[in-house]
């Protein structure tokens, strides 16, 4: 039976590197995708996912297992980093990463999808996060509520509102295409 995040954290605190590696392998991709969908930038997403573990590894890390699940704490750190990146504006990537700089934009190449991504990035943080967790990460309402640290009802209402906003964007876009 696999250990919980909190058990792995306690082992890690005792210096168990395998526990830390297990935690990394379990959560890194999720954190990366969360950051990617919230920022639309693969390089920044990698930085953020990495930084969460650097923060976790610090001996003065503020996570306290008594106060809540580790996953929520990790997403909380990622959320703060996403906000910080967004405040900074467009990310200045290293030149040597240019080829891989935008997985979403580079691989999909669908105009509509790029438009949706743009619309997603323009949503207010709380609405975008609901879409990212429930629609893109396929978390259920309970999990999303735990990560977002809010009631389930709030998740549902934010998700409903966010979907409506995105649908309106799509509708307007479609109407413009018809007009052209």
């Amino acid at each position, binding site marked *: 039976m696999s250990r919980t995040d909190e058990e792995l954290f306690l082992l890690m605190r*005792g*210096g*168990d*590197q*395998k526990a*830390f*590696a297990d935690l*990394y*392998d379990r959560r*890194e*991709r999720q954190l*990366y*995708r969360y950051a*990617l*969908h919230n920022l639309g930038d*693969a390089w920044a997403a*990698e930085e953020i*996912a*990495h930084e969460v*573990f*650097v923060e976790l*590894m610090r*001996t003065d890390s503020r996570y306290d297992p008594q106060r809540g699940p580790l996953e929520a704490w990790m997403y909380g750190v990622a959320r703060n980093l996403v906000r910080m990146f967004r405040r900074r504006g467009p990310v200045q990537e290293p030149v040597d990463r240019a080829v891989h700089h935008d*997985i*979403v934009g580079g*691989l*999909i190449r*669908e105009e*509509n*999808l790029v438009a*949706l*991504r743009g619309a997603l990035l323009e949503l207010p943080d709380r609405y975008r996060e609901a879409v990212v967790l429930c*629609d*893109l990460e*396929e978390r259920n309402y309970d999990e999303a509520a735990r990560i977002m640290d809010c009631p389930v009802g709030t998740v549902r209402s934010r998700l*409903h509102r966010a*979907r*409506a906003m*995105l*649908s309106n964007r*799509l*509708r307007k876009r*479609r109407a413009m295409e018809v007009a052209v």
Partner: protein
Amino acid sequence: MQARQEISQKVHDGQEPHAELSGHLKTCGKCRGVWEIRQELVRQFDAMRQSAATHRPSVKRRDDLMRNFSAQYPLTAQRQRRPVQHWAWALAMAAAVLLMVAVGSRVTSLWNPAQPVTMEEVSSLAGSSDGQEGFIAVPYAPALASGELMRVVRTELYPAALVSLGLDVDPAWSGKMQAELLVGEDGYPRAVRVSTDSEGVF
């Protein structure tokens, strides 16, 4: 309004509209538009999900992180490596034993635990350059601690080895000779005895 909420929920839950809703969608253009837009949204969410799923963590970043972890928790990391070290230690010991066996033809006696030699005995043995036992003190060798045990190492030496210990060697002598060394616990020789069948020395 209720129909639109139902449409929204069913589309995002991946459900097909029931008969009544299907009938409504055929007659209501506005609701049909909502249905189509929501279906389009769900398709695009799927595509975004798939594209993001191609991500693989950077091996270098992971390695860097694990290295940092080892640096931050060094004692425990060493403890975790201990089983490997046990194996390495056992292998090293086995290799050392094999090496000793291989060198055995040259060094016939490395350790004689039945006859340990103390500093006092060394002093008496090597008290004079022509001592009864034939041991010659190595000049300027580090002093022994009181009670420190010595071991007798029998080996073959070239004259140059004796010169390097500070002993006088007849320049005419050039071959190897049998010799016994009194070696301290620090591995440094304190006295030398040349075999009686070796000639040309001293």
